[in-house]
């Protein structure tokens, strides 16, 4: 692929803090105009990768480009082309909403008015509080202000490090609607999240854990490529059942997942026999069905394969 069609190119990036390998030979590409999700738990290395890409940290080895520019050689140029929303709230708490916006605009030599159109769908939601200090805003308002500040200089690549962590389900889904809007306007977006259910909102995702990539693909392909029979089962005593399921040999893995426990079956798995077994063990109202995996099932499978 021609480099110019890529918003971000990461090849073989490693970074250690003392003896801890935060990133271990990571490679991935983000195409222009796509929303690329970095999905993984705390400690997976998401923030380290972000810091390297926005030129706040140097990698130990490997190459990375943003907007076609090298993160080490061209770091000054990159800084004016990227918008970065760190995981920790990093605006000035003593400045008002309006003052924060003006400050960030002036850093990049623009005015709020100049690029108002780009931020308007988000900024207009908090503008009526423009004289309130940033430190006194609710979580959702801080999030919107941080996104507005990251956008005010009209960056070509947007980096959002866990923008939805600690935010409730409704606000999270509204936030993703805003991202989709920005994508429509041509921005390339790299976004990280620990919430697996947000993966489906991305064009492509990388599942990462312990500093390396488990898989990169579209969310749909990942689910389609799931290569084991998966069942959901529920009954009147879910904890007892879980302990029983763990002892069944034809079950490769089983785990809680909301209303049902999921069963990753091996070839010898026999549905009728399991139901009989569970009934014999005194469990009632047993309901067992084949289920379609989601990204969390994929992640668990990849992690389990790795831990074996």
């Amino acid at each position, binding site marked *: 692929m021609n480099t110019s069609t890529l918003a971000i190119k990461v090849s073989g990036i490693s970074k250690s803090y003392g003896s801890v390998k935060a990133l271990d030979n990571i490679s991935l590409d983000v195409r222009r105009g796509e929303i690329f999700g970095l999905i*993984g738990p*705390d400690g997976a290395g998401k923030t380290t990768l972000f810091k390297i890409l926005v030129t706040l940290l140097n990698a130990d080895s490997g190459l990375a480009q943003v907007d076609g520019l090298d993160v080490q050689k061209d770091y000054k140029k990159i800084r004016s082309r990227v918008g970065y929303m760190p995981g920790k709230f990093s605006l000035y708490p003593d400045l008002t909403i309006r003052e924060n916006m003006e400050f960030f605009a002036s850093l990049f030599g623009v005015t709020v008015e100049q690029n108002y159109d780009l931020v308007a769908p988000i900024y207009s939601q908090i503008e009526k509080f423009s004289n309130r200090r940033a430190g006194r805003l609710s*979580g*959702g308002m801080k999030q919107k202000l941080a996104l507005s500040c990251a956008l005010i200089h009209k960056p070509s690549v947007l980096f959002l490090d*866990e923008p939805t962590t*600690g935010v*409730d389900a409704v606000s999270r889904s509204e936030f993703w609607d805003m991202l989709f809007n920005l994508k429509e306007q041509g921005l390339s977006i790299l976004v990280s999240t*620990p919430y697996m259910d947000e993966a489906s909102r991305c064009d492509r995702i990388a599942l990462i854990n312990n500093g390396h990539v488990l898989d990169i693909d579209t969310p749909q392909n990942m689910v389609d490529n799931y290569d084991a029979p998966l069942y959901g089962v529920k009954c009147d005593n879910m904890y007892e059942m879980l302990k029983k399921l763990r002892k069944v040999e034809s079950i490769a893995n089983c785990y809680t997942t*909301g*209303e049902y426990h999921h069963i990753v079956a091996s070839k010898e798995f026999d549905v009728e026999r399991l139901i009989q077994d569970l009934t014999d063990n005194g469990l009632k109202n047993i309901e067992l069905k084949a289920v379609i995996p989601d990204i969390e099932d994929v992640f668990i499978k990849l992690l389990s394969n790795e831990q074996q």
Partner: protein
Amino acid sequence: MSNNDYIIDVKDLTKKFGTFTAVDHITFSVKRGEIFGFLGANGAGKTTAMRMLCGLSYPTSGSGTVAGFDVTKEGEKIKRHIGYMSQRFSLYEDLTVMENMELFGGIYGVKSKDLKERASDLLEKLNFVEERDTMVGSLPLGWKQKLAFAVATLHRPEIVFLDEPTGGVDPITRRQFWEMIYQASSEGTTIFVTTHYMDEAEYCHRVSMMVDGQIKALDTPANLKKQYNAASIDEMFRILARGAKRGD
């Protein structure tokens, strides 16, 4: 200590800050041994309500008991009889696993002989024996959270309050954490838990949903789904939270 069936039993609990009513006449009970999910959108009043239930703040009005003590005046006693764990503050990072256990056990008045026994039991149960002398700060987040739960139950409280205990934890460890909750519950400990993961709400025996300072729904996950004609608790949450007037 009262012997009734309810470990939490509150009526019209209300908290005002100036003219703002953060918690608005909430009335509910939690049975002993129950896993109770306390849901709500950001800004709905969950944290304020939880602080009152944990004896950290007194209600503006209302009445009730937690672990048999009066929520309007026995905050200190409540604190001593409950376990509490939050995502933000869990353990001292520059103390070892064992030192954290000794410190918290000591604070809660666990006798040193009991403490030694319980600590070694817990280390074994958690597969942490080799990490006994490891600084907590160098443990992965998921391990810290499991350890924090264990530490919060060292003094054998009848009820443990968990404030978003699994935020950011990987999917496998998150489930291991919930198995610890299941186990504690099966041994009779009451669990009061908040979470943003809606699948976790389904693991609870009953869940309540706070909107604008009030409890708008409270029942078993199955009944709530039926009542709101929702396929999942996630969907029920969205239906109720979209009706919220305040918040973000």
